[in-house]
């Protein structure tokens, strides 16, 4: 498989703050690669470096064999970069926006209609509406249409689903998957852990470090312990009670359950149940569950500390 993005020892600092700590990463051509991490983990800095908009302090980055510093002019023709903030002209209509972006890249909507059709046809009925008056989901679709309109080789999407409703988010990922047919490499970041499963491979990033790079399945399968979902009638004290338990590896709130791991390999539900009953909990429900990316993320963070 061809490498589309090659990141070697990238370091970026803002004064005393280190945003990226000597990151290295390879992204293959045609894959959907997720950069998963919380706010402030360095995702946006990484994207701006990839988009040729920011210079790293040290290290090299090449996309499609072109250096982001030296060959930025050539690269800008091949990249489709969508920043985290909604970056379209709010006072222009849907149609005016997309026509403008087509012109910026020296093409026309008509010439590229095949690639944007899937997405643009959904917002085309509103083509005379001002972009500022669109819903969050439609804005995202318009923004994606605008970065796609010049058939980029690599799409850089920085948090495209932040602030978008769950249904639109799901639709959006469906669109991205269909874009694979065009052999476009898609690098996408998200703070939503559940979206990681939609990617071919992901990098988990925290405090400017990449903690793990793998397929989402592998990351999940490599969860080092057995994971239990615990639920009782007393939602307020369960977390602290579990953390006080002698053999607790980790305990985190996850939806309306607590995800719990035990430091021992031998573990019976009954022992924990007895402990919780002693603490006054009733309706105790303990069941083994499969780890999610979020569990893995927390586990990786915990290990680091």
């Amino acid at each position, binding site marked *: 498989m061809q490498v589309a993005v090659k990141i070697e020892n990238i370091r970026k600092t803002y004064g005393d703050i280190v945003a990226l700590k000597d990151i290295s990463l390879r992204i293959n051509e045609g894959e959907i690669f997720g950069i998963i991490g919380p706010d402030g983990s360095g995702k946006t800095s990484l994207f701006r470096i990839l988009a040729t908009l920011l210079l790293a302090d040290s290290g090299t980055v090449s996309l499609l064999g072109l250096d982001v510093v030296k060959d930025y002019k050539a690269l800008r023709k091949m990249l489709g970069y969508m*920043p985290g903030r909604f970056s379209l002209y709010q*006072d*222009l209509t849907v149609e005016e926006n997309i026509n403008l972006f087509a012109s910026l890249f*020296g093409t026309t909507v008509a010439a590229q209609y095949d690639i944007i059709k899937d997405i643009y046809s959904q917002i085309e009925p509103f083509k005379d509406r001002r972009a500022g008056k669109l819903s969050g989901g439609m804005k995202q679709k318009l923004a994606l249409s605008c970065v796609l309109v010049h058939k980029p080789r690599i799409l850089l999407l920085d948090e495209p689903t932040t602030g978008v409703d769950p249904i639109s988010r799901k639709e959006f990922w469906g669109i991205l998957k269909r874009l694979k047919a065009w052999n476009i490499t898609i690098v996408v970041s998200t703070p939503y852990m559940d979206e990681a499963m939609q990617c071919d491979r992901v990098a988990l990033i925290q405090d400017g470090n990449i903690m793990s790079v793998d397929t989402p399945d592998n990351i999940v399968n490599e969860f080092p312990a057995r994971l239990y979902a615990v639920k009782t009638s007393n939602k307020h004290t369960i977390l602290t009670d579990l953390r006080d338990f002698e053999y607790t590896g980790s305990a985190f709130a996850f939806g309306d359950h607590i995800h719990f791991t035990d430091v021992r390999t031998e573990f019976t539900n009954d022992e924990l149940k007895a402990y919780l009953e002693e603490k006054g909990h009733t309706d105790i429900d303990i069941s083994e569950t499969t780890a999610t990316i979020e569990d893995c993320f927390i586990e990786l963070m915990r290990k680091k500390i």
Partner: protein
Amino acid sequence: MNRFIAFVKKEFLHILRDKQTLLIMFGLPVVQVVLFGFAITTEIKDASISILDLSRDHVTRKISNKILSTGYFKLDTYLDHEGEIEQAFKEGKVKEVIVFGRNFATEFESGNARVQLIVDATDPNTGTTLINYTSAIILDFIRGEYPEAGMFRPVALETRMWYNPELKSVYYFIPGVITIILMIVSTMLTSISLTREKELGTMEVLLASPMKPAQVIIAKVVPYMILSFINAVIILIMGKTIFGLPLEGSLALLLGETLLFILVALSLGVLISTHAATQQVALMISLFALMLPTILLSGFIFPVENMPLILQLIANVIPAKWFVIILKDIMLKGSDITDIWKETLVLVLFCLVFIAASVKNYKVRLE
């Protein structure tokens, strides 16, 4: 090229859809011209005066009639004796008292006639103007009566008013208004429109596109250049039709110089936007760092020659100062390019410096 045209079109749409920008661009010039033309005026019309005629002969009557028939003055009362002069001023009824000496007609023949002009100088500008008007009229009368009596001077004051013999203040204001408007529209609106792209994050997308920085800037500037030029023409037409502003020099030269000044203002706007991160900052810099010095030091309202030396020196780096000189020279004196090439060269230099600084400051990447 298509890319460029599309961008210019987009910029026009921004302007046309933003009511505030439109209002600033086309409302402001009209309001300013009317305001400066009619309201803020230093010219004299129907000024109340009193006359103390100690001679009451045919000559003083003729002079009085001549003064009162000009429309500049309105007679309040004839005074009877000198003691009433102070009273008239204190009551605030009159701005000027004209005193004709005794035996005026006889003394007039022998060349010893005396006229005293007393003005209320609490407003020194008006006072000076009144003196100038009155003495001009009297001198005119003498010249009419005794064309041959060249040395005859009943009032030891000779005031000659070149270029604006009627002291029409609107003639001075219109060039100033054009300058200010061009400064506001060109500098402020361009700097704001460029920083707006930064603030909204669209600059990030533009930077990441193959569009060259120079193309972005020029495409941004072109609509403002066209609209500023239209504005300048509107103000000139208003000046001509409403206020009868003269244009002694060549129209082509005037428009050419105007375009040059627009370029100076636009490049200054671009320069500001390369420094300002937000629209607010751009607005502040344009307004306070530029508008006030432009209004105060350009010679638009206050003559630069009367300022302290330090301010005169500072005024030299205000582009508007040079443009006001150019405008007045072309419009009122009928100067051609050989008279104003120095001022023109200064503007060209300003323009080049601003453009060079902008290009140097413009980043092809984010900070």
